[in-house]
């Protein structure tokens, strides 16, 4: 008798996995390596995926954990050779601002601003605002309580808002 569980549809999840990996790593080629590792792990663990549940949340959880493990390994290695372990949040963010393939300059600036956020806040913002994942699923991805997700999200938004120097109650500007 074959396994009754269907395999998760990893191909259709690929574009979003790749996007999340880019936001995590801040580097296009490292992102693809991370996707590769995530796919291998997802295949191994595929029987643990509950058919019908949010596939993105499950895959993002695997990817988040892999990323955190790899990063702590790298930190341990680099701690011996360099002393700048306490770098700012923007360190390692190498997403080109033209990466949106859009004419609109402000979108490139958004990518730049996202890179200036601490990693966890950047992650939450992508998952909540762009992926529109449930807060509970984001908590599962990051392995933190939901309250932590909410406060990270709030801080991320507040920082972005200040970067754009948009007053809290700015009236809608009509351009064009």
């Amino acid at each position, binding site marked *: 008798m074959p*396994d009754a569980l269907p395999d998760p549809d*990893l*191909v259709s*999840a*690929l*574009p*979003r996995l*790749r*996007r999340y990996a*880019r*936001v995590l790593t801040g580097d296009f080629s490292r992102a*693809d390596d991370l*996707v*590769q*590792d995530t*796919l*291998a792990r997802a*295949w*191994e663990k*595929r*029987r643990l995926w509950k058919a019908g549940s949010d596939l993105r949340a499950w895959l993002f959880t695997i990817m988040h954990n892999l990323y955190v493990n790899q990063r702590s390994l790298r930190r341990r290695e680099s701690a011996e050779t360099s002393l700048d372990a306490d770098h700012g949040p923007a360190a390692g963010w190498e997403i080109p601002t033209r*990466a*949106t*393939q*859009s004419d*609109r300059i*402000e*979108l*490139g600036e*958004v*990518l730049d601003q*996202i890179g200036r956020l601490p990693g966890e806040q950047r992650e939450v*913002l*992508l998952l*909540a*605002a*762009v992926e*529109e994942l*449930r*807060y509970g699923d984001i908590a599962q991805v990051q392995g933190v309580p939901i309250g932590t997700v*909410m406060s990270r*999200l*709030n801080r991320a*938004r507040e920082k*972005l*808002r200040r970067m754009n120097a*948009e007053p*809290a*109650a*700015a009236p*809608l500007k009509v351009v064009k």
Partner: protein
Amino acid sequence: MSAGLPLSDDDLNAYADRQLSPERAAQVEARLAEEPALAARVAAIQRQNATLREAFDPWLAEALPRELIASATARHSARSRARSWPLLAAAASLVVGLAVGWLMRGELLQREGTPVTFPRQAALTHALYAADVNRPVEIWANEEERLVRWLSKRLHFPLHAPNLNSAGFALVGGRLVAGNERPGALFMYENADKQRISLLVRKDAEATRETAFRYAQEDGVGVFYWIDDACGYALSGNLDKTQLLSIARIVYGQLAVAEAAGKP
């Protein structure tokens, strides 16, 4: 009704992200109608969301690298495939070899004897299936009872899947594999580091001489094997020799106990 209801940042975020229950959303909406400053904050959050989507959505339309698509569809990940090609090729030639060997078995067995080829078969079988991320086994460990019953039936003698938890290895499952004269049974185990070891059990007519533990290295795979009660056992894996031996002893001990219990 909603007047005076305090709204937190969390309420505003959750409302802007449409994560509130309909009832709670209605309450917040009523409050926002009374507080233009809060309503403006919600609008700002939603504008920010729209800008973020505009910035990040184009990435979704990019062409995907072929390797990623292959890894998302293939039965093996690209990584494990790259690592195991030489052994898979060897394993493929083993299949041919087994067919030829079976046809000429009288002659070959006279010349080589079973114990010489048994560890090699074990190592190649291990390499073939341990590298298979998705289907290392035919029946998974969650159906252990069915697995053991089925393999016992196919091999025509009672089998046992040793419990290697004490060595840190959990049963993944098992499968039927080709043998010289009769099929063999393969039990696969895995530890927390995803290292796999496998136990091959085979009963061939010629495997009558009992042997002590013997060790062989075949293509980088270590194999401890022994013949007991006309049955050949081989434990294969990429572990160091002492670790593999200690696990082989556990297997041997458990099988001896099971055998004694099975006899009237």
